[in-house]
């Protein structure tokens, strides 16, 4: 019995991190209707960022801030290179553009690092109950995720710039007419989305070893979570991630682990058909449409 509870708690903890990973994707998708297929590569960039900063002697959790800043800067660059010209064009163009960028980045990454495994050793005392251990790193990652999600919410709903982002998401022309520099806001939003992806990658790197190709699995989960939470709904993404983690935690004690992916995607399809605006559409989101 306790084993099932332990699995559920573990699932929620990891699910929070899935949610953080998805927040960046859903923000970009919801605000500018761009499906960012470099999302996985940005997660990996965060992982490598953390790895190299910790080899310089910076403690793992202190290195998260520079990773966030670095991710933001990279996001601005990626925006101007592959996204700016395809906004407002058919979605297939942004899909192809970001897909191509992703191939370039992963190809470069593989050329430099191969598929060698990298590990960031982070040790925090965990909680052990009745033989089941909840690692300190998982707990810390969940706490940090909640803080970042809270900060994002405050930014989008209480600060001028955040409100400007929501305005542009709602109606770009009207926002432009109101004096909001929409191009810069879009670039900022994209960079914010990428920064969120990279910091989620850094947090994931405190939990698991990674390779250049590790981003793909999280990108896939991010799509599922984005659908569960509703497009453009960062709070929904967090809740969706936790729901996904909860689902995984509930399934594993009762069924062979290989069924988890099957069930996840069945749920994905059901939500797409029955709840197109996401399970958590009742939570306020960046788009008011």
């Amino acid at each position: 019995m306790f084993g099932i509870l332990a699995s559920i708690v573990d699932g929620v903890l990891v699910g929070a991190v899935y949610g953080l990973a998805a927040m960046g994707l859903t923000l970009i998708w919801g605000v500018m209707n761009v499906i960012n297929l470099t999302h996985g590569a940005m997660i990996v960039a965060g992982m490598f960022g953390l790895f190299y900063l910790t080899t310089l002697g910076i403690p793992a959790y202190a290195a998260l801030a520079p990773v966030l800043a670095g991710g933001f800067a990279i996001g601005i660059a990626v925006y101007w290179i592959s996204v700016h010209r395809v906004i407002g064009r058919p979605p297939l163009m942004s899909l192809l553009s970001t897909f191509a960028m992703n191939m370039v980045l992963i190809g470069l990454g593989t050329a430099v690092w191969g598929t060698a495994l990298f590990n960031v050793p982070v040790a925090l005392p965990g909680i052990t109950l009745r033989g089941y251990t909840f690692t300190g790193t998982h707990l810390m990652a969940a706490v940090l995720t909640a803080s970042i999600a809270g900060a994002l919410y405050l930014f989008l709903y209480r600060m001028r710039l955040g409100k400007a982002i929501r305005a542009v998401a709602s109606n770009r022309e009207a926002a432009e007419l109101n004096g909001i520099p929409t191009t810069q806001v879009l670039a900022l939003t994209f960079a914010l989305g990428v920064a969120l992806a990279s910091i989620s990658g850094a947090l994931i790197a405190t939990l698991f070893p990674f390779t250049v190709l590790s981003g793909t699995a999280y990108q896939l989960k991010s799509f599922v979570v984005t659908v569960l939470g509703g497009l453009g709904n960062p709070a929904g993404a967090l809740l969706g991630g936790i729901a996904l983690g909860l689902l995984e935690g509930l399934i594993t004690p009762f069924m062979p682990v290989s069924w988890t992916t099957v069930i996840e995607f069945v749920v994905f399809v059901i939500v797409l058909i029955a709840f197109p605006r996401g399970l958590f559409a009742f939570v306020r989101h960046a788009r008011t449409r």
Partner: protein
Amino acid sequence: MKKLQLLVVAFLCVFASAHVYAAEDTLTIGFTVSQTGPLNLDSIAQLHGFEMWRDDVNAAGGIKAGDKHYKVRFVTYDDQSQPGRVQQLYTRLIAEDKAQFLFSPYSSGLVATATVISEQYGKLMMSIGGAEPQTYRLGNKGLFQTYTPADHYLSGALELVKSKNPTAKIALVYSDDPFSKAVAIATREQSKQLGLSLVLDESYPPNQTDFSAIINKIVSSGADTLLGGGHYPDGATLARQLHDQKANLKWVTLLVAPDSPQFASLGAAAQGISVPSQWAPQVTYKPDFGPTPAEFTKRFQARFNIAPGYHAAGGYGGGLLFQRAIEQSGSIDPAKVAAELDKMNATTLWGATKFSTDPKSHGLQLAHQMVLTQWQMKNGQLVKEVIWPLAAATAPVAYPYH
């Protein structure tokens, strides 16, 4: 004008003779390498083994076949770790690049795909890096396996566990790919024969990222021994999470991942974990031909700045076997070379090799043995020691592993 014509003719003569000269003296071996994709690390290690063999052979004047000397020339492509690409590229290697012999790609899944093509065209292929045995039970004629088949991967670990803890409770947790599944099937059978109880028996998707729920399941099952894993990233993640979650096990043997020298980067999480290996640098085989394991290790380390693992040794060994068969048959005629390989019963740095000649399992490796190595602390550093079979051991078994 006449001078120009003469020059052109002279140039053509030189070019033509050079071309003819080259064609007579080279042996083309074709294969694909996973330069990109998840199999990149192991495939490139295997490539380094091939390259070292080729360079050694060519430095000694080439392969002697009768009274001709053939320099070895490789034609390689990147298969991107994908079966679809393997299919296209091996067809190209045979039909366009006119490869006379083939090496396989790395990993059982890709070897199976390449075999379909090589058998279709009636070409000889030396399989290195393909342990899954089903591929060799399809009545192939030109395929030869250098690796120990997957059925025997965990045999040593089971014997060791039985000797240390006859009432061990085993959790078998493995990746859902052809190689790991083949190992799991054999392990189930062998544990039953040894009278060991299997309390958990599960597969996970090859791209599984988080093992915490699985580890909870292992704890719930009451297991004290864990056998399984798959390939590199999942094995390393599993090892790290086992350490973080303090799963209370007495013995852990994982496939493939702990064999890489990079596994040591996991630090304390790597200590005590054992891995069945096709080969280790410390083995003491006495070769009938070719360099000794120690010589090979020293030169490999000097050239590539990393200790060789079994992938590299397998590459070199595979090349040696081809070379020997050509030299013994005195020709590069595939039928004659195949006949020599069928007769071969030799030991190289790689170990003993003998190919099955039964038509139903032609080419299956019969003689090669696995060693079990364990990561142990020695003078403050993590090193891999051979712990099983006891006759080949370089250090005592550390049991419980942690």
